[in-house]
């Protein structure tokens, strides 16, 4: 029997009972769709974070207080060794440096009338907008006057503005941060969100105000250091480290009480996290594909039993065992292939939907689609083999007698 003949027989069997065929393939459909959607979300998160970190420039160093933290992002400030004076000293004494932004980053409740959100309140200096390349879309940014006066002024990120004010104009409105009244002087441009980090969910206030009025501290959480060029990064990193060790009076034998990371380091960490997430989500989805395969095997076994007499008839008129094997194998592969194709369509549609509803960046990659499809076909062959062998091993006389 030719493959084409086997394929026609398989199509007839599949089309003969469409509801059952769809239910049989459902596991594979869901599995393929899930693999595609999950990998798209993971890859999207990875690309978005990469783009965001790269948008900051490859010539940025970040100085954290404390020794190296896993992931490089420390919430709260366990170590309070970094100060605004350190930032000033870096600007003055390290020649490669073109900009410095000292920041203090805390979670706090922000209230406008009856609306309230818990968000990141970041104390920043006027240089923040240039070093971070993050500017107000409306209103004005924090000035040196605000710094000197520890002014109670704030700029809102897009997410916070939306939550507190909706469509209304927030500029000039009073908001309360930790119970203290601030005037909104501006709204920041949108930086976008990924599936695990919303960069617009923040409120900016003058650093001095954050330190004295809000949180009662003298240190800063991190210092962003802008270096003139990428080539000068190693020299700058060394100079900043030397300077901070001197200022913090660390003897030769003692560890740094700060950590310096370049954008490349941070990129690697974020990218690693996103990659892990992609693999994890993809594997969970792959499990559902395997379960789908078991569904196909189950129905194929039922089908072989139901069609025992048909198998007997085919054998009586001259079907060899391998013809029967081929027929049932082609049928299970046809089921998983059509399930795979439907799964691809549904996976791509689901990915688009998730992108629109959750606002997450997603990347549908051709290799991921091919991988999911190839896996579906492999599942069809693997789980189709046993039922097909059972069919091929039937005794023609027994099979013909079967009711």
């Amino acid at each position, binding site marked *: 029997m030719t493959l084409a003949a086997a394929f026609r027989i398989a199509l*007839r069997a599949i089309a003969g009972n469409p509801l059952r065929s769809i239910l049989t393939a459902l596991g594979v459909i869901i599995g393929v769709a899930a693999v595609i959607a999950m990998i798209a979300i993971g890859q999207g998160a990875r690309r978005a974070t990469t783009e965001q970190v790269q948008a900051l420039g490859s010539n940025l160093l970040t100085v954290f207080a404390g020794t190296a933290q896993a992931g490089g992002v420390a919430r709260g400030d366990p170590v309070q060794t970094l100060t605004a004076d350190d930032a000033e000293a870096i600007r003055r004494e390290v020649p490669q440096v073109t900009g410095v932004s000292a920041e203090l980053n805390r979670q706090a409740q922000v209230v406008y009338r009856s609306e309230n959100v818990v968000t990141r309140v970041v104390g920043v200096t006027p240089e923040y907008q240039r070093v971070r390349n993050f500017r107000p879309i409306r209103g004005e940014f924090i000035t040196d006057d605000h710094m000197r006066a520890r002014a109670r002024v704030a700029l809102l990120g897009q997410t916070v503005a939306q939550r507190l004010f909706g469509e209304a104009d927030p500029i000039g409105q009073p908001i309360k941060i930790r119970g203290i009244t601030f005037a909104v002087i501006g709204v920041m441009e949108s930086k976008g969100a990924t599936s695990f980090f919303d960069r617009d969910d923040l409120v900016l206030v003058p650093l001095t105000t954050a330190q004295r009025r809000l949180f009662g501290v003298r240190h800063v959480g991190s210092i962003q250091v802008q270096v003139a060029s990428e080539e000068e990064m190693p020299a700058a990193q060394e100079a900043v480290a030397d300077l901070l060790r001197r200022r913090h009076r660390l003897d030769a034998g003692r560890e740094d009480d700060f950590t310096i990371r370049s954008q490349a380091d941070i990129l690697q960490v974020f990218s690693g996290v996103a990659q892990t997430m992609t693999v994890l989500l993809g594997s969970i989805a792959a499990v559902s594909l395997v379960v789908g395969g078991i569904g196909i095997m189950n129905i194929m076994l039922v089908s072989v039993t139901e069609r025992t007499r048909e198998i007997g008839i085919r054998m009586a008129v*001259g079907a060899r065992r*391998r013809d029967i094997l081929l027929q049932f194998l082609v049928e299970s592969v046809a089921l998983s292939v059509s399930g795979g194709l439907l799964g691809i369509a549904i996976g791509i549609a689901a990915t688009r939907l998730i992108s629109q509803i959750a606002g997450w960046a997603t990347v549908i990659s051709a290799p991921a689609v091919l991988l999911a499809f190839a896996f579906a076909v492999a599942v069809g062959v693997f789980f189709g083999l046993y039922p097909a062998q059972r069919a091929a091993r039937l005794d*023609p006389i027994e099979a*013909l007698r079967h009711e």
Partner: protein
Amino acid sequence: MALISLRQVEKVYRMDGVEVRALRGISLEVDAGEFVAIMGPSGSGKSTCMNIIGCLDRPTSGTYVLDGTDVGSLDDGALARLRNRRIGFVFQSFNLLPRTPAVENVELPMIYAGTPDRRARALAALEAVGLRDRAGHLPTQLSGGEQQRVAIARALVMAPPLILADEPTGNLDSATAGEIMGVLDGLSRQGMTIVLVTHEADIAAHARRHVHFRDGRIVRDEPARARFAASGGTPR
């Protein structure tokens, strides 16, 4: 030369650990062009003998030569090929594929033979049994007699030298049974070798030779015309 040649054929089954000797040394020769009825009560071994003649089963001992081929030495694939090319089966329960149009049922043996022009040949075979206009009908849309005629068309389409008919009229009323036997008579007149299993005397009467089975042995093998003369029952 004999088309079918069975020599001292024995068949022993093991069912639940118990040995069942279904055939106890059968020797039978059927020449090309003969119309033979195999008769006997159930359990007499006639079905087992048909399965062996039909290459669906192999003898435990003894030899079976079909059309010059020693069947005992063949593997499953070669047996399937023999069934495909040398034998046309007609069953009691028709055994058409369900949900499959008549013409495609007739095409079935040709699919496994890889024959070209299958549709045209299948339609010609249906024409020969007078069902050309029913080609697109499903088995459920056909009467019992029509279904059996489709089965005969399927048995003939590969132009085999031998037709094996296992109680072909068992599921039909007597008028329809007469029609089907008429088709077989016609084939016999054209020189087709037919081996028919039946336990009905009036069906067996269409054959020209009667072989009686009992307890796994052939107890009588005689020309049909001698049937009434030998009613005293003297085993040969």
